[in-house]
């Protein structure tokens, strides 16, 4: 076995200089995050009047972006979980940042349900605590389910990420100590909880890691389903369909995979980790994304075909969403999510960041269009005719979106800066097994 095989990974966070490109990226992400702060303060001071929402379009970018980020988080987590549970070889290279991407996406998503409220500072009223009102939350409400869903999503995704990270944090501690950086070693040591690599600990750690991974799986399905139920349990004809959860879960997958794929390509180039995220990994990821997109094609087709079986109101509502004022969003989403990722079946493309990154980001953007189409186009045809003008996002809403992208990027950059981006112990394990003749 090769000596010091994971040193480049562990030494990356210990580098003092990350180069101008990293600094530039941090500056960009930091600027966008400041925009987020600005947008949040403006929102708190002036309220939802800043948005383009109205009656009936009571939700705009708030819910669109929330559902979108949750989809990315879910798909990235789902991908990581499946790799862990199947002990797939790809997990060593992409798991860690798939988990990190999921966590950052959940963080970006979680700000929206709070900010979308008319009175965001009262969001904790959805939690059952003994308030002076003596009134409790309404547990029948999808929004209370959603409160538990988001909370569990953040916690369980975080647990999954952290559980896998503990041994590698021990490595970081030891490497920092070896380099004489006692302060840094102390910090890593604390968060590594005194991990010392005992084989007994490893046995229980592996069990716990796989259990948490197994828990993520139903959590993802139920959390995403709960988000979908916020739409599906309403009386709005286009939303009130049993297939909405399936649609949301299924279309979330290519967007999450697309983000992971784009990040993988960027990390290969940006941090020089080509050895850890090798060509084989890129091929596998690319094919997975293309396959998930194909599955979405089925879901889209089913969505239109099912209209033929529905009652008249629902049929008209589906037609209004696909061919009405927001038809561009619907078909733009379908093209970016279903058709464009099919290019990834071409092996040559999968290794070239210039193709992979736009396709991956495009899949995520396509799902964003799909969520936009759901939240707005789904309301075009209600039981009674529309009472207000159409929704169009305003500058403060775009600012909020840019800000949440900035937050996501900043968290990812911090992740690349402070923790090993590849699961080192898994890499060692894999390589030691490969050594066995």
């Amino acid at each position, binding site marked *: 076995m090769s000596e010091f095989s994971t040193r480049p990974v562990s030494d990356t966070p210990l580098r003092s200089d990350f180069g101008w490109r990293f600094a530039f990226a941090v500056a960009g992400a930091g600027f966008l995050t400041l925009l987020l702060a600005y947008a949040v303060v403006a929102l708190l001071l002036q309220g939802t009047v800043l948005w383009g929402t109205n009656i009936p379009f009571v939700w705009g970018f708030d819910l669109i972006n929330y559902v979108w980020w949750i989809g990315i988080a879910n798909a990235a987590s789902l991908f990581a979980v499946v790799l862990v549970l199947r002990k797939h070889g790809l997990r060593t290279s992409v798991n860690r940042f798939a988990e990190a991407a999921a966590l950052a996406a959940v963080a970006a998503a979680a700000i929206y349900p709070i900010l979308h409220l008319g009175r965001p500072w009262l969001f904790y009223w959805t939690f059952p605590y003994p308030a002076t009102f003596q009134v409790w939350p309404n*547990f029948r409400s999808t929004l209370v389910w959603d409160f538990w*869903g988001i909370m569990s999503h953040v916690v369980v995704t975080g647990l999954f990420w*952290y559980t896998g990270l503990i041994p590698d944090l*021990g490595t970081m501690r030891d*490497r920092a100590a070896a380099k004489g950086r006692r302060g840094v070693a102390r910090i890593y040591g604390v968060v590594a909880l*005194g991990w010392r690599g005992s084989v*007994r600990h490893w*046995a229980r750690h592996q*069990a716990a890691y796989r259990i948490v991974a197994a828990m993520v799986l139903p959590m993802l399905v139920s959390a995403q389903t709960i988000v979908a139920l916020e739409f599906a349990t309403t009386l709005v004809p286009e939303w009130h369909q049993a297939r909405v959860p399936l649609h949301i879960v299924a279309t979330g997958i290519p967007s999450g995979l697309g983000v992971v794929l784009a990040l993988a390509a960027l990390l290969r180039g940006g941090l020089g980790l080509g050895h850890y995220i090798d060509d084989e990994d890129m091929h596998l990821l690319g094919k997975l994304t293309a396959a998930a997109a194909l599955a979405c094609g089925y879901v889209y087709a089913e969505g239109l075909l099912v209209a033929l079986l529905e009652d008249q109101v629902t049929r008209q509502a589906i037609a209004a969403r696909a061919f009405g004022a927001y038809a561009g969003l619907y078909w733009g989403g379908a093209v970016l999510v279903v058709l464009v990722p099919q290019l990834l079946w071409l092996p040559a493309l999968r290794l070239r960041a210039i193709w992979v990154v736009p396709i991956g980001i495009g899949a995520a953007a396509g799902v964003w269009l799909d969520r936009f189409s759901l939240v707005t186009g789904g309301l075009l045809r209600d039981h009674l005719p529309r009472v207000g003008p159409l929704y169009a996002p305003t500058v403060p809403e775009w600012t909020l979106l840019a800000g949440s992208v900035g937050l996501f990027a900043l968290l990812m950059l911090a992740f690349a800066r402070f923790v090993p981006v590849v699961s080192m112990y898994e890499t060692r394990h894999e390589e*030691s097994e490969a050594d066995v003749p």
Partner: protein
Amino acid sequence: MTRPGPIGVIATFDDPDAMVAALRAAREAGWRRLDAYAPFPVPEAAALLGVNGARVAWIALAAGLFGAVLAYGTQWWLSVQAYPINIGGRPLHALPAFLPATTIVGILWAAAGALLGMLALNRLPRLHHPVFAAPGFGRASEDRFFVCLFTGDPGLGAWEARHLLNRHQPLSVAELEA
């Protein structure tokens, strides 16, 4: 004032197989208080030491069930007993509506139970441990494998440990001070 004797002897290996062999020999020699350290999971070694993840799983299951019961019970009690109120003409006890939160809180407790159970069984966090003082132990998290035999049982002292470990061609052998 005399210093106390070593609390254990630790050997460094560069190969997991050598570590497992040393461990097996120590078990056969009757060592009860011993441990091995590796940069990645070595299930054979854990089996030799009689450890598996079953207890973590039981803790997670219990925590998950408790969380689910707690969630359902809270919803039922607060909706039906503490503050019954007519909401949209629906019954107070809304079984289907209570299930999503029940499920997801159960999952939350199970996941948290798995991590916390693992840490509790591993007696972690424990930031200081004598093995950290072993020379070169920093590489236990990279590419070195260690077997540590703790003294204290009758007839199993530092000399016996050193003798046993040296038979397995360790890179080095050292004594651990308390």
